[in-house]
């Protein structure tokens, strides 16, 4: 393999990985746009982080997901491992809107005792999808 092919190959690989990265972030931005279309926003990563760490009678998002969402978590009761929540660490996150909705519904009700508002969801997604 000569130098030129090698360069061409690595350039192609680089472009591909860039494309893959932008595609995985695209999921989050589509979901944010949908929330905005419903009247929520603007979203704040800082507010998302605060909600993540907020203690609710001993429960928080961090109980199962961990304080650092780039790290894997663990279900408090069953011990089942949970993949990282940030798009950076886990490009599959927020690529399936139905899945996102399902888990927001369940986990907000369990953790906060109520459903999350569109604003709260947007804040958390914004925080988790920071590059």
């Amino acid at each position: 393999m000569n130098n030129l092919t090698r360069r061409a190959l690595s350039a192609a690989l680089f472009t591909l990985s860039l494309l893959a990265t932008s595609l995985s972030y695209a999921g989050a931005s589509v979901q944010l746009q949908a929330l905005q279309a419903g009247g929520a926003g603007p979203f704040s990563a800082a507010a998302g982080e605060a909600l993540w760490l907020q203690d609710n009678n001993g429960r928080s998002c961090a109980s199962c997901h961990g304080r650092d969402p780039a790290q894997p978590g663990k279900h408090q009761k069953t011990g089942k491992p949970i993949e990282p929540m940030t798009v950076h660490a886990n490009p599959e996150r927020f690529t399936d809107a139905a899945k996102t909705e399902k888990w927001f519904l369940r986990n907000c009700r369990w953790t906060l005792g109520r459903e999350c508002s569109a604003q709260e969801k947007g804040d958390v997604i914004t925080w988790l999808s920071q590059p």
Partner: protein
Amino acid sequence: MSKLNALRFATGTLLLGSALTLGIYGLSTLNNQSFADDDDDEQSEYRPRSEQPGTDTAAALQYKQECGSCHLPYPAKLLPARSWQTMMASLDNHFGDDASLSAATQAEILAYLSAHSASNHTRYLKGLAYNDTPQRITELPYFKRKHREVPERMVTGNPQVGSFSQCDSCHKDAAQGKFNEHTVVIPGFGRWDD
């Protein structure tokens, strides 16, 4: 003289052959007997099961995906259909967790669980009243009987296990629906052999 030798050789071969055959037969029978001595169904469980009915259908995969994202997808056959009905109707408080599903998914999973429930495998229901609706597999008389020899300190008192509901901590093939005791390894204690 050579005729006599040939006769001797033939007799020897015959005797040795029958002794070996008898020995092998004896060993295999002994093996079977030791399984038969085990409590009830070990023997059938130990046989490799080529057919795990309905474990690769779309419904089974959906069950594994939805329920298995939080815990081991427990085999449907371990609870009667009436128990699955109660459980699937109260997913908003699922042992203290919110495990809500869309109405459609919920109905599909209930159909799968009912079709493969213990109602078709009555040995798991032994000792249970016909109208009992147990929600915890660990509370079934069948389950208790199967685990009565396992000391608490190896499970509930074992930080690496924590609870009898964590099947796959010790049953290494639990995810494939296999629970026979020969594959049991208790974390911190090793293989289980009674």
